[in-house]
């Protein structure tokens, strides 16, 4: 990814993030989270993680944030806007974040920087030999393209099969839990 695109998406992401904290209206905050996640998905796609970028847009901005907006409008939180700011939490938040950023800069200034390894046609074609000949992954790699979704599926269903089953159980438990939590309790 060219540098100017990286900085563009990073700026979108950070401005969106700052707006989440700054806006008083919860609906504005939720829409700022969407802005932030669009910038983040751009960064993911720039890192050639196409599947993760699309999932970020679909799941996070498409499903999770719509759920947030739905709950905000359901609870009718307009009256939350007219409140005085308390100084202690704001000072604490700024101090904590500044301490964190100072530490981060200290660590990053000491670590060895690294440029991205090339993912050009020859490198991809060379890695095709690690997969079964004639498979979709091997042929696409041989053409010099990155079959991102196929590789993720390959990893998920071979090395992470058990974890995937556990995840299915987790989602089922979460669904049952949400239904039982949302039921109106009998008086």
């Amino acid at each position, binding site marked *: 990814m060219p540098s100017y695109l990286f900085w563009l998406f990073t700026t979108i992401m950070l401005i969106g993030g700052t707006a989440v904290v700054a806006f008083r209206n919860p609906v504005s905050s939720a829409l700022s989270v969407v802005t932030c996640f669009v910038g983040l998905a751009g960064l993911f796609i720039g890192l050639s993680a196409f599947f993760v970028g699309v999932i970020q847009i679909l799941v996070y901005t498409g499903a999770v944030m719509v*759920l947030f907006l739905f709950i905000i409008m359901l609870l009718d939180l307009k009256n939350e806007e007219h409140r005085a700011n308390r100084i202690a939490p704001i000072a604490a938040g700024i101090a904590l974040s500044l301490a964190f950023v100072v530490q981060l800069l200290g660590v990053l200034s000491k670590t060895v920087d690294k440029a991205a390894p090339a993912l050009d046609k020859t490198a991809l074609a060379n890695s095709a030999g690690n997969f079964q000949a004639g498979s979709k992954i091997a042929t696409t790699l041989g053409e010099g393209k990155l079959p991102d979704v196929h590789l993720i599926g390959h990893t998920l269903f071979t090395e992470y099969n058990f974890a995937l089953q556990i995840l299915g159980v987790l989602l089922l438990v979460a669904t049952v839990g949400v239904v039982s939590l949302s039921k109106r309790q009998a008086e």
Partner: protein
Amino acid sequence: MATLNDYLLASGLLFAIGLAGVVMRRNIIIVFMCLELMLSAANLSLVAFSRFNTVNGLPDYNGQMLVFFVITVAAAEVAVGLAIIVALYRSRQTIHTDELTSLKG
């Protein structure tokens, strides 16, 4: 080309913004959104590590698997958390953390 440290810096700044929001804001829903920002910041650093450490000339897909699992767990967590917030609002008529003081000694 952006280097690994650039991505880690962007991820760290997003994490710091989320942390500031969790501490500063008094509205539970916004605190919850800031938690999502922190999770996404961690995801960004995971994807960056996956891209910058190649295995056999391909990105290390184990990192992206962890991102995949984090996003799934986060979606489940959001559903349960919002259900809890709705139940809280039904019983107390508020989601402002300064007014939820029944556990205060």
